[in-house]
């Protein structure tokens, strides 16, 4: 049994080694986010639960960036929670962050008790469509980040180059794939798993089901105005470059779920 090397001249040598070991793995380059103890320590140092509670929905908000470390058990939820409590004057200031940590715990429990929900619809879609109405495969323009909707293409580029997306960007992308393009959530979930450095079938696939409405009461949709509010300059949210997203919720609901309206 050969023991594989643990010392490399530089990071590129490590990346080349992994590519040679796993040539089948999707993606061409590594993420710039390093799995080092120094990087983890930096992120734990920066943990600011109160600021997190105020700004977490904004792309440039004080999110922790801890997900790849938590996903791989490099730090436990308990350790992050304890640190969060140590950093606040009032317990309630840590509640939002601890509640988000609880989302991870929740999805793990769901997978433990319902492993079949990882790839199968937990419930029917509440969109007026049945799962047969959704395409099985991810369209090529989405995989290539060339949908023609600028904000979505920027999100896909971020995903495929860094392997990390803010929660809000994951929601936008998933909603676009399932509801604008009417593609099965499974196809989108697989695409994200292939690129995320924190890829976790429980958090990822069950979140996709939540967006799709197969694990929630109604489909999650957004519009350009919402993106403009939360994204700042992080992605291109110019109206002329994002026409498919630029409408009120009422108009989008009627456009995306016409049969739901007929049913109502």
């Amino acid at each position: 049994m050969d023991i594989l090397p643990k010392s490399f001249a530089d990071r590129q040598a490590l990346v080349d080694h992994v590519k040679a070991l796993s040539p089948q793995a999707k993606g061409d380059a590594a993420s710039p986010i390093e799995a080092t103890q120094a990087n983890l320590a930096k992120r734990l140092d920066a943990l600011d639960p109160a600021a997190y509670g105020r700004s977490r929905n904004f792309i440039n908000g004080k999110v922790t960036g801890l997900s790849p470390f938590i996903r791989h058990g490099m730090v436990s939820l308990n350790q992050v929670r304890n640190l969060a409590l140590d950093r606040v004057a009032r317990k309630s200031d840590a509640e939002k962050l601890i509640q988000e940590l609880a989302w991870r715990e929740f999805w793990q429990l769901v997978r433990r008790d319902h492993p079949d929900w990882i790839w199968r619809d937990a419930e029917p879609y509440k969109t007026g469509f049945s799962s047969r109405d959704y395409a099985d495969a991810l369209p090529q323009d989405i995989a290539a980040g060339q949908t023609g909707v600028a904000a979505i293409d920027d999100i896909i580029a971020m995903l495929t180059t860094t392997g990390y997306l803010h929660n809000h960007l994951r929601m936008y992308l998933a909603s676009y794939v399932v509801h604008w393009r009417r593609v099965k959530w499974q196809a989108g979930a697989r695409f994200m798993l292939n690129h995320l450095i924190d890829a976790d079938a429980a958090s990822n696939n069950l979140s996709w089901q939540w967006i799709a409405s197969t694990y929630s009461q109604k489909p999650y949709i957004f519009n350009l105005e919402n993106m403009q509010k939360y994204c700042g300059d992080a992605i291109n949210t110019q109206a002329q470059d994002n026409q498919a997203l630029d409408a009120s919720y009422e108009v989008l609901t009627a456009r995306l779920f016409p049969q739901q309206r007929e049913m109502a």
Partner: protein
Amino acid sequence: MATILWVHDGALRADHPMFDAETVKSSRDYKAVFIWDNDYFNKAEMGLKQLVFIYEALLDMPVDIVQGSMVEVLRQCAGTDGTIVTAATSDITLTQMMAALNTSHRLQVVADEPFAHLDKTPDLRRFFRYWNKAKSSAMQHHGGMPILWTE
């Protein structure tokens, strides 16, 4: 009798409670392995970026990286009468492998530090039904539970 500490991709830290398991501590020459298993990675849909992240994390861990099929390598390392110690997970493929290994070997599965205490499994249909039950424990250091592991 060999003791094998099976480190998988959900437990890449040297202070995971599995390193403190009595079986591991009392074994003078336990061996920690991470198995680079492409079939497992493919099944999990893991891409290059995540695999590089995992390999890089392993560089800091007291563990040997070995390429092969997880179950086969573990059976080979543990011999006929060895013990395999590993970290609990809800991952479906890993859970199935653990069940298979349990038929041929002594397998000890060590849970991570708990996050929240629940009297019984809550309704998992919706997050807030879970959160309402878990919150009072989750909002305390160590989930308000006695610390059974060493820090």
